[in-house]
């Protein structure tokens, strides 16, 4: 089945130690998104890639970076995680084309714990 995959599902890191979360998709979608979701809150968009074009949300901290080496994969890098970065990180994809489809497809998320 076509899907969005996130690894690992649970990640523990230490304060200040860089961490990378990964996302892959078999949907061949041209847009990939990274969201941060804290407990009992809505997902908050960090950035997205539209094909190879990277777009930051205005309030995304510089501590968060992303890479998309090809259509299928996208990575979230947190350079120096703080306690406030502990959250669920969700990857999503979407196709922007003439069909007018607008659904975003979400992965299962990675739960990040910062010690």
């Amino acid at each position, binding site marked *: 089945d076509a899907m969005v995959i*996130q690894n690992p599902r649970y990640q523990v890191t230490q304060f200040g130690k860089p961490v990378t979360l990964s996302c892959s998709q078999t949907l061949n979608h041209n847009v990939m998104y990274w969201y941060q979701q804290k407990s009992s809150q809505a997902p908050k968009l960090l950035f997205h890639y539209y094909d190879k074009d990277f777009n930051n949300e205005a309030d995304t901290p510089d501590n968060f970076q992303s890479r998309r080496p090809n259509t299928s994969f996208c990575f979230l890098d947190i350079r120096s995680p703080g306690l406030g970065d502990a959250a669920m990180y969700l990857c999503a994809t979407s196709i*922007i084309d003439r069909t007018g489809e*607008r659904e975003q497809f*979400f992965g299962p*998320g990675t*739960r990040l714990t910062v010690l």
Partner: protein
Amino acid sequence: AQSVTQLDSQVPVFEEAPVELRCNYSSSVSVYLFWYVQYPNQGLQLLLKYLSGSTLVKGINGFEAEFNKSQTSFHLRKPSVHISDTAEYFCAVSDGVGFNKFYFGSGTKLNVKP
């Protein structure tokens, strides 16, 4: 930018009772509307969507929603809930422009009691 309001942060309901989760959005221009469900420690799963056409949309798990343009609302309903419907529900709106940015409501926790 859009804003999305889910008026109820928590909705307790007994099993087999009907439920309505409310969602209002800010703009009356053309929008695309979605309801997602999130179970603990999982991602978001699409329940249903409105892109165009009939204003009554049927989704998975017996849920339906009605798009009301004049009231800028997209309320989610189910005539008879099950224990397994206990989850958090998010309403989302996209104006379909550019990269299809979603504007999420703050979520409604549905707690179905036996």
